[in-house]
């Protein structure tokens, strides 16, 4: 977008670690993730189920159970620390500065409130608009997210809307206060493919028009490739690769990323779908050495003892792998 100075950094996450303490044992869900998000940028986070994507996203807005969750590190939102601040100042950020949309539009709307009430409530919470202004703004928002006949929709309840429509309403709620960052936790997973495409286009369009930054979590590389500027690949609670989206898709430098790309249908000429063998790691201890080595085709003796760190293979392209120069998509 800009051709001069690099855009301002909105969100800066440093060494974020999240662990859940249970009765029997501790689960280390996120293990030292660092990244930054620039104004207007879209960052994608991919990884398989249980790799800590959603946990990390929720931690960004402080949505965790404080009694059983230990979070360390630093989350700075335009210069101010968010991790560990009290609930009431966190509430001023949530919804107003950083908004979030969720995976399943069927269950994230309150079934007993009308659409107008659900959107109006956010405006009531974060703005000083009066009733009439809130109604006007609500209609404007519904139009913004592409809902036809918004005046008509205001009076409806969530069960009267289709899945795609509900996801649009959820997006409208999230955008009500013009947040600077929109966190999207698998926004299209529960929708069928044609609606999925519409919602992704809508998100990309809204981001451009409103100048927001977005973080999109998905396990679908296609979704990420369509919408994001940069991609972060997570495995076992760790960031394993971070790169601009084209670079990551063309020349991945982590064997896990390469495996994910190979397992996309049609990416390699073969009758069978490629699969990464083995199981994702259990997160009962903090990884010291590479947690992917058990499933890795490129693993060597050296991997057993290498205490991992992010290596910068190209400017803006970091990877957590010793053998990054041997990684190929097609072999």
């Amino acid at each position: 977008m800009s051709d001069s100075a690099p855009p301002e950094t909105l969100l800066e996450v440093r060494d974020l670690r999240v662990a859940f303490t249970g009765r029997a044992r501790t689960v280390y869900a996120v293990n030292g993730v660092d990244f930054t998000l620039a104004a207007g940028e879209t960052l994608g986070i991919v990884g398989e189920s249980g790799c800590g994507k959603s946990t990390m996203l929720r931690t960004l807005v402080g949505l965790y159970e404080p009694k059983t969750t230990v979070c360390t590190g630093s989350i700075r939102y335009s210069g101010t620390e968010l991790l560990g601040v009290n609930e009431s100042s966190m509430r001023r950020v949530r919804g107003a500065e950083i908004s979030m949309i969720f995976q399943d539009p069927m269950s994230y709307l309150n079934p007993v409130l009308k659409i107008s009430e659900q959107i109006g409530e956010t405006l009531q919470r974060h703005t000083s608009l009066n009733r009439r202004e809130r109604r006007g703004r609500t209609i404007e928002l519904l139009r913004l997210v592409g809902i036809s006949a918004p005046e008509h929709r205001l009076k409806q309840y969530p069960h009267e809307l289709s899945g795609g429509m509900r996801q649009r309403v959820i997006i409208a709620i999230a955008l009500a206060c013009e947040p600077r960052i929109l966190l999207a936790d698998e926004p299209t997973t529960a929708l069928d493919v044609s609606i999925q495409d519409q919602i992704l286009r809508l998100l990309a369009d809204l981001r451009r028009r409103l100048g927001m930054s977005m973080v999109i979590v998905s396990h679908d590389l296609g979704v990420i490739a369509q919408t994001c500027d940069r991609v972060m690949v997570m495995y076992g609670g760790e960031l394993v690769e971070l790169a601009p989206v084209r670079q990551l898709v063309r020349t991945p430098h982590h064997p896990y990323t390469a495996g994910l790309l190979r397992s996309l249908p049609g990416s390699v000429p073969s009758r069978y779908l490629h699969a990464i063998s083995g199981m994702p790691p259990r997160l009962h201890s903090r990884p010291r050495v590479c947690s992917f080595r058990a499933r890795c085709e490129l693993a060597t003796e050296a991997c057993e003892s290498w205490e991992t760190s992010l290596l910068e293979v190209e400017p803006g392209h970091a990877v957590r792998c010793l053998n990054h120069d041997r990684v190929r998509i097609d072999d």
Partner: protein
Amino acid sequence: MSSGVPAPVTVPIGTAEDKLLSRRRRLPVRAPIVVGAVLVTFVVIVALAAPLIAPYAPNQQDLLHTLEPPLSPSHLLGTDQLGRDELSRVVWAARVDLLIAFGVTIVTFSFGTLVGVVAGTFGGIVDAILMRIVDVFFAFPLVVLVLAIVAILGNGLIYLLIAMWAVTWVSYARIVRAEVMIVKHQDYVPAARALGYSRWRIMSRHIIPNAIAPAIVYGTIDAVNNVSIGASLGFLGLGVQDPTAEWGKMISDSQAFIRTAWWLPVMPGIAIVIFGLGLSIIGDGLADRLRDKSDA
């Protein structure tokens, strides 16, 4: 025009047909609820308009015309052993019985719901303490406990109310707590947190409205129960005292005359049936509707 491309068909929203459709789409109020509402409303109107409906004062004796059968010249439903007009007594008794039904139910519903919401929301030690208290109440037979409290406090309508308030809120607390436990793990609760809503707002706007339905249904049935408990205690001579008319007590007082004056127990009995049936039907209808909604 000439190219043969058909003009795009636009379907306007807000036409007459559309309005008709949207009206249709609302859940129809089922007939049972209407029937129940009519019965209950009838009793409520009778209670409110008692001075207008009752031909005599409820306690006015006429010892020259005792035990007259129904349809006698000046007493539509006959008279009792003291010559009091049965119709007037049944009508005036509606006030007392409605007071028991609604006066008890509203208070216990509110208090029990509050306890249930607090227990369900906070969980942990708060929940444990509140629910153990509830368990203690459940360990006693309900009517016996009410009896014991009335026996300690003394006879009278207000003591009857106090005893029932003290005992019957526990069911609401248990129902609401269980429901809150379910609702607070629904996805829209963390979604509300993600929008920066306060705990209080989430509780009052997002959790309670979704958790309260079963308690409302139970409330309609509980109101019937309360009438029957009130009537039972009246029958036992506790609670409402002479000469106040109350349906249960009227039945109790007529025991000695059942063989000669069947109308004395039957008339207040019919009144209890009308009111109880009305409330039960409403409760049943509400339960059906709520089930439909959750299926949708």
